[in-house]
């Protein structure tokens, strides 16, 4: 029980820390995926099968692909070995500021939440009940989350993409030659 939790926590935090410390961007991305898989293992440990498999399907299957494609397609220097340049003082300061802001938001949210004492027996929810709850009660929230994810994806692409003149002069791949007549 508890040793397993510590192992999972070690896996999650260790891979996340290694992802931050490594210089190679692809290694970092892969370790981040390991960390997400650790989150899924934690859900499994907590008995939430559905959430665990959804976590693997979404994060390990889909978001990881977005991250890897983004890393490979948006790098300006087309060298395969994408190494991050050494950290500067400004970058470190920005990173710490952002991290502090996120931590403040999270801790405010956690501290302001009133936790009811949990029932001694874990509730067993079937997949059908989860589906009905998701679609009836929390349908709006689900749609909003989807919208936010789309916006985040578009924003990331816009941030990473830079307009270059030679891009516009190239013909688009979609344009196919017109139908030939015999």
């Amino acid at each position: 029980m508890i040793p397993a939790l510590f192992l999972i926590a070690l896996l999650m935090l260790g891979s996340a820390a290694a992802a931050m410390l490594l210089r190679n961007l692809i290694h970092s991305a892969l370790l981040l995926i390991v960390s997400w898989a650790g989150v899924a293992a934690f859900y499994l440990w907590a008995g939430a099968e559905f959430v665990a498999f959804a976590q693997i399907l979404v994060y390990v299957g889909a978001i990881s692909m977005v991250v890897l494609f983004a890393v490979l397609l948006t790098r300006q220097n087309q060298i395969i070995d994408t190494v991050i340049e050494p950290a500067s003082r400004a970058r470190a300061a920005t990173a710490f500021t952002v991290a502090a802001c996120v931590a403040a938001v999270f801790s405010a949210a956690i501290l302001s939440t009133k936790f009811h004492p949990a029932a001694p027996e874990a509730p067993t929810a079937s997949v059908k009940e989860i589906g009905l709850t998701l679609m009836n009660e929390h349908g709006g929230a689900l749609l909003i989350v989807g919208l936010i994810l789309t916006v985040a994806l578009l924003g990331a692409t816009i941030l990473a993409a830079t307009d270059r003149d030679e891009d516009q002069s190239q013909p688009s791949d979609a344009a196919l030659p017109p139908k030939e007549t015999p």
Partner: protein
Amino acid sequence: MSLSTLSSQLSTAATASSAAAAAASPDSFLERAPLELRDWAVNLLPTPVQWLAHHLITIVCILAVFGLFFAFTTIAERKLLARLQNRLGPNRSGLPKLSILPWHFKHTLFGLSQPFADAIKAITKEDIVPAAADKLLHFLAPVIVVAFSLMTFAVLPFGRNIIPVELDAALLYFFAAGAATELAIFMAGWSSRNKYSLLAAMRALAQLISYELPLILSVVPIVLVTSTLSTKAIVLAQSGWTFGFLPHWFVFTPWGFAGFIIFLIAALAESNRSPFDLPEAESELVAGHLTEYSGFKYALFFMAEYFGLTALSGLGVTLFLGGWQAPLPFLEFIPSYLWFMGKLICMIVFFIWVRGTLLRLRIDQLTRLAWQFLVPLALLNIANAAFWVLTTQWSLPLQFVRWGVSAAIVVIPFIMMGRALSASYAPRSYRYAP
């Protein structure tokens, strides 16, 4: 609930359900034989290790059965493709002459020992790793791809009582386990430190991501109708016969048939089979993302591809073709696991037939087929299944209307979209030099 209690609960649930089934249903001896054999073997061991032995036996069974299945799929594929191409195929490998034996069994066994010869060849080949490669990832990629493609077998119900792990969210587990193969392909392509490997890996990923959507969307109608994600419950929902001879398999409903066709196409693409074998089109590329792999690692990728194909075929059988159910009531005396394996073999032979018949697509045709044709059709099919669920209570004359409307919902868009999309591309006209 911890992992250990979860697994113990699962195993107790499995044994309890099997015991209940053995007590209640008129199961023949053959039906119960595999479970009885397992329980007998488990009971030989002391109590503390029984749960471990229980799971290990399951794992070893899957490995042995599907390892051999893989071996004979390769030889079946080579022989069938050869016949389709007017050749004989491998027919020379018999048994080797062992020097300690005084006699030699000279029959060539119709070449059926070819996969074992291939395996020995793959093991004894030199394992070349490029000097600049990322050694760890280069090694991990084939390991991950085989491990995760084997994990998908865990939730397939192979027989009435034979299901390795009974999960409430089995379908979700299946696709979650399959998702990791994409990562392995990326790792293989990137760690080779070869531009062509990386490019091919990105192409392969684009294909896999494009077809994962129709694959999952084609399965959603089943979940909608049965309102469960458990593979066992889905098979049980397909039991019974109308008029005593029409099985209630989902493939025999309009939405199920459309879903099955979409599932077949997406499964072909997901397992890199012809006509969607662009990632390693052997006559166009060297070997795609496997260019820098050799020896047994290459064989492992090959193996994972066939495991993935077999698992997806098994899922197709489970979801659409009634799983382990017999097609006719009087054929029920044949054990359920033989029905499952028979249907599985039919699916595999169908895939081999498709490979021998159809031509390879171009990458733009491939992605256009997925995004412009299969995804909208699959979405329509979900609406179709919803209509089917809402009209379950209709009386007999209205049932004909229900079937007609349900068929129209898939057939009319199929024809219209097919015409609209192929308007500028087909029929093709060729001009030859005079």
